[in-house]
């Protein structure tokens, strides 16, 4: 009973905050409300027994996305204070369209074929062979590792997409992220005390990801947050985008992933298949490399393209 009341309140709250972020007057408010929405949403994920997703949603869906959105809102939001929408009749059509989509989907809840489908049994049946304890990690790195590999390429291409927006002259230079101009000693303090803790936590997240919720994405996001903090506080110089060490960190994860994929051709004879008995160590090695790469890529995505005039 209490659980149902809680769920109902949570569902209403998520819908309400979601609607509020669509309607908010100022764009900066809309973005901040959206971040709150993301945090509430991770609570929903906990409630439907998807802890891995809850962590990802909090880290990437709300945290990393929120960081980018806030920066963009402050940069572009000043030009127009009020919310501009399409004119009268179009607005009515949009409302009708949106509500019919929502109602149609909602009604499907009652007509989805009665017997729920699930691959949970299949996943668990083969999971012991891989040595992993977390079934979600099993899906991500054993059964559907091809998706995960392609998704790494997607991240890499997204980074190139961001870099491509810099100018020819500044190619390979320092990203346009501005370190805090004033001497804010507290931020520097935070940037010196938090990263060791964050680093430990990121390693922990990745390490336990094989057996309990956690993993490379979540660990990587924590890593990225620490790095952005350090860059913003000006504690460490932001590296040049052409720096070989930086490039190595970016590709470390994909390289290990691809290497293990090709290793599968040699033994046991199939791309992305793991040699008997070596699945777990290989996956852990892959996740460690991926944590580093994801952390660096997420950090660089928020740092933006190299931009000579903003760098100083």
């Amino acid at each position: 009973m209490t659980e149902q009341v809680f769920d109902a309140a949570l569902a209403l709250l998520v819908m309400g905050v979601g609607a509020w972020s669509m309607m908010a007057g100022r764009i900066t408010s809309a973005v901040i409300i959206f971040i709150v929405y993301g945090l509430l949403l991770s609570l929903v994920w906990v409630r439907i027994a998807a802890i891995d997703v809850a962590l990802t949603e909090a880290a990437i869906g709300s945290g990393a996305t929120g960081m980018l959105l806030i920066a963009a809102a402050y940069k572009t939001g000043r030009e127009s204070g009020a919310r501009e929408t399409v004119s009268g009749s179009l607005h009515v059509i949009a409302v009708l369209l949106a509500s019919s989509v929502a109602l149609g989907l909602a009604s499907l809840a009652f007509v989805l074929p009665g017997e729920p489908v699930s691959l949970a049994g299949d996943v668990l049946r083969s999971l012991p062979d891989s040595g992993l304890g977390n079934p979600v990690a099993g899906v991500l790195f054993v059964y559907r590792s091809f998706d995960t590999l392609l998704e790494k390429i997607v991240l890499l291409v997204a980074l190139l997409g961001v870099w491509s927006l810099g100018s020819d002259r500044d190619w390979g230079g320092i990203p346009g992220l501005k370190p805090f101009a004033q001497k804010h000693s507290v931020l520097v303090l935070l940037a010196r005390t938090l990263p060791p803790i964050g680093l430990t936590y990121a390693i922990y997240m990745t390490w336990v990801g094989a057996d309990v919720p956690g993993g490379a994405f979540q660990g990587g996001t924590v890593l990225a947050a620490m790095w952005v903090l350090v860059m913003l506080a000006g504690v460490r110089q932001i590296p040049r985008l052409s720096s070989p060490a930086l490039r190595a960190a970016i590709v470390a994860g994909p390289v290990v992933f691809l290497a293990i994929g090709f290793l599968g051709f040699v033994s046991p004879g199939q791309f992305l298949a793991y040699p008997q008995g070596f699945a777990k160590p290989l996956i852990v090695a892959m996740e460690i490399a991926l944590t580093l790469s994801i952390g660096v890529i997420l950090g660089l995505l928020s740092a933006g393209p190299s931009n000579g005039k903003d760098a100083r």
Partner: protein
Amino acid sequence: MMPLQSLAAAAPTPDGYLLVLAIILPATAIVALVGLGGRGAAGIVLATLAAQLIIAIRVLSLVWQSGAPVVYVIGGWDPPLGIALRADGISAVMMLTSAVIFSAAAAFAWKDYRPPRWSPETRGSLVFWSALLAMASALNTLFTSADLFNLYVALELLTFAAIPVVSLKGSAETLRAALRYLIFAVFGSMLYLLGIVLLYGAYGTLDVSSLAELIRPNAATLVAAALVTVGLLAKTALFPFHLWLPPAHAGAPAAGSAVLSALVVKGSLFLLMRLWFDTFPSLRDPAAMQILAALGAAAVIVGSVMAIRQARLKLLVAYSTVAQIGYMFFVFTLVPVLPGESWIAASAWTGGWLQIVSHAFAKAAMFLAAGLVAEALGHDRIRDLAGLGKQLPLIVLTFAMSGISLMGLPPSGGFSAKFMLLVAATAEGHWLWATVIIGGGLLAGIYIFGVLARMLAAMPDGTAVAEIGRGRQLITFALAGVALLLGFLPLEPMALLQIGRMP
């Protein structure tokens, strides 16, 4: 609980590893380009493109010889748990088409974006070649993957690779075009994803072939099919979702525009056709198919009329893409829902795919030609094109040749394609669509002859024409030549395109 076993257990074929290589080699090359920071870039790009061509030819000959699809199961995990790759006749044809056009575009772009051997990398070269390779990888995934979620990731990879090509010039205009394209495309893929979420909820599998056997026309499935269709239409830029296409395709550098118009829009279109004909055939309600055909007809007319009204050559060519995409939607209604006169269905099917392939070659040639024109004159205003016929006859000839295919005049791939569609339309009594097929050709004639007339007009005094290398003209000419040569294929349904289709 009902754990679903894979019904159509995919039996891997010995050479199936070629499919995974077709996807992974370009991906590996991107990683190498970024990691090595320009060292050996030229070699990496050349080797990958060559491998693409060899693999595509090999897959096509395997499919052709065995008469059966090439199949690979990644990691040995059978669907529905794992992901299978499967190349049938149409996949093989599309893989080869894309490999050839990528190679031609690469050769064309070599001068402007020469990848460094040892010297430091530049923005244009790293971004252009990575994007090109990412598009090749994503398209090969789209042509071969049998897993709906894997296809979603591929669709997104294709979009994210296309965006930097659109905005490579970095002007406010191209940035705006890229942003609008991105919003449309991501909206489309979200609808697609929503559709496959519902399909998983109903059937517990994302494998295309298992779904084909399980699917029943219930409410959830119909909503899913509608969402997937609308999502893919937004990405394919079918009328009325075409608004993003012209500025995006016209704003990219010539080689980029060629690839975007010839191949990238075909990725989502390929998936749409695969789903409707192989996975949802039992859902093909004639009325719904008529809606798709009607949108296609509207695209033919609106796209052509807009092309006629353009003042800039690249925009004209981009609007022509909007129109030519429309033709492919007649296939949805011309391949009959009920098995009837099978030669009509086969004719429409072959005509539709021939249209996709010949449009790819003709449009790639036309965009490259338009790029050369802009480079020679320093602008692409149609009213100031006079005199090109004297200065750059080969480019004008190329433009005319690709125009012939787009108009559907014989002998050209475009003619055979439109003729076969027309035959199917008249045999089934779809007079309205037959009229649009003919009318679209006439409208195409107006915009193409309009441009040719300007090009062949006498040169006004004082027009400076920049020197254009012979090599790039020949590449462009060769592409247009392929579009014409496709017209010499026998005018009959092709068995190759039927190989591996679901019954």
